[in-house]
């Protein structure tokens, strides 16, 4: 039996996402959409951002093959998931929250739910103005920077 290299071994491990990506690259869009959906449903309840990306990828594939109504429904689902992700990170990681709301807004826009999209974009912008990844001096009571005392040479 032929020995396998490590690349061959890891490539044998099944990955719904990789398979979907490969099918999409090959132009097999309907089948790719099915695998994206399967992955999205697997992630639903575990990782909202990954689930959202699955729905969004499936929607984009279906749109390209002319299944517009199904695509719009998936865009809306993706928007719901991005919004869920944004809300779940709001007290932890504000940069992620802003991104989540912006992605949700885009998805609702593609789903032709313009009012929701606009509202979420406003929420993202309002948070974005307050976010800084830099720790500011005001976060803690201040100490004067320490300056070494001049001492005699040892």
């Amino acid at each position: 039996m032929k020995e396998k290299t490590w690349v061959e071994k890891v490539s044998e491990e099944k990955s719904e996402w990789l398979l979907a990506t490969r099918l999409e690259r090959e132009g097999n869009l309907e089948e790719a959409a099915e695998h994206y959906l399967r992955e999205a449903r697997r992630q639903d309840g575990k990782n909202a951002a990954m689930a959202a990306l699955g729905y969004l990828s499936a929607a984009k594939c279906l749109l390209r093959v002319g299944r517009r109504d199904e695509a719009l429904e998936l865009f809306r689902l993706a928007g719901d998931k991005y919004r869920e992700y944004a809300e779940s990170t709001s007290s932890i990681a504000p940069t992620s929250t802003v991104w989540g709301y912006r992605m949700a807004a885009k998805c609702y826009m593609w789903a032709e739910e313009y009012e929701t999209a606009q509202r979420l974009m406003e929420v993202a912008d309002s948070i974005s103005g307050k976010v800084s990844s830099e720790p500011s001096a005001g976060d803690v009571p201040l100490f004067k920077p320490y300056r070494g005392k001049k001492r005699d040479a040892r």
Partner: protein
Amino acid sequence: MRVLMLTEGTYPYFKGGVSTWTDDLITNLREFEFIVAAVLPTPFFKPCYNLPENVIGLASIPLWGTELVKEFHGEPIKMMIKRRLNTKDWEIRRQFTPHFRRFIREVKNGGKNPEAVAQSLYEMHLFLREHDYKKTFRSRYVWDVIRQELAEDPLYQNLSVSSTVEISRIIQHLLRVLAHEYPEVDLCHSSAAAFCGIPAVLLKMEFGIPYLLTEHGIYFRERVLDAVRGMEGVVEKILWMNLYRAIVGLNYHYADKILPVCRFNVDWEKEFKVPPEKIEVIYNGVDVRKFRPIQVADDAGAKRVVVMARIDRLKDIMNIIDAMGYVVDEHNDAFCRIFGPIEDEVYYEQCLNRIRELGLENRISFMGPTDAPEVEYNRAMVVAQPSLSEGFPYTIIEAMACGKPVVATDVGGVREALGECGIVVPPRSPKLLAEGIIRLLDDPELRESMGRMARVRAVKLFSHERFIEDYRRVYVQAVSERKLGV
């Protein structure tokens, strides 16, 4: 979703900050599958971490210590022999050396054109996938390229023959990453702007796979320090710096997003003309439930200074040894415990000699690695960090989370981490380091208030949840931007 995590001299074979970061990330991003490709000095290391279940593959890429490049990758021996026999001199001359020459030319000028560097590496990679690495690099055509390119260059023509041979030998080893095949993944993530990032560049060129780069210590800066310290001739130093500049520039150019662990790194990245919109600082996070102020049954009131660092030149252990000489002059009951593995035996011996010279044998102890750092931090009266180079050191934020006052050198992200609730001194300044320690030993109120504020700051800014959530987002974001343009 599948991620290729690329490391160099760290996870999972060596302990340290970058390894802690990698392990933490992989363990907590369970919904992603990881394949780890680790560049390491030789193949004779065993992983010192239990790989999490979501690691579906581990490949080591040893740069030295192997006769055949792929012998540890399960490639059948028949294939290796066939490849060797199929590698003809004329193929090397016609199909390999033009790209190798282009690479050396780019290296000579510091890789000013990263796309040319990438193209030459990619073409060499395509050749080496099908041909024998050793035979190729041992070919006289390859040697001729190096010799000609250096001899014809006004700057490098005065290199000695022995230096040229040495350079040729080392480049041959460093480029071993090109000989391997890499699996299809959704995302590449490198933990350094180093040779380990080259596979990510190759995969991006071949399949358009997005590439994320996290920068801990500044790889280029550390290699410059190595070259300044370890090389004899000026021209040799320039050539090495240009080689590393080319590799670092390549990584910066091809990374879709650069994620430095602190703002200090951003200035270096901007020097390489990285567009600001590509950069996002993500601070390391610490588990503030594990690292917290706790009562430890020990010699309360002992003037214990704790250092958490591996025994390595970059950590400048000599700095704390000299500093303790000054500290003991003021506090003859003060002592220092250094926790961390010995990475550099020669340096360790030098440290021991210095301790003997200063008569500090009873004052400084090397404790080896510890499994309970939170206990050791809590035993400390002061935590010190004497390093020459850091990214965003765990030792600082862990000590802060334990509510301990810290005296540290002003390197990397240390100042950003401590803010104004710690004492920062210049590197290589043992006297100032000692003054900081003495000030804290002298003043219990200052220790107490600094420690309290440090804990508040760590909880607020460097939480583990934020760290993980930010990476979860950038993973999904990178894939969606690449795939969907959003």
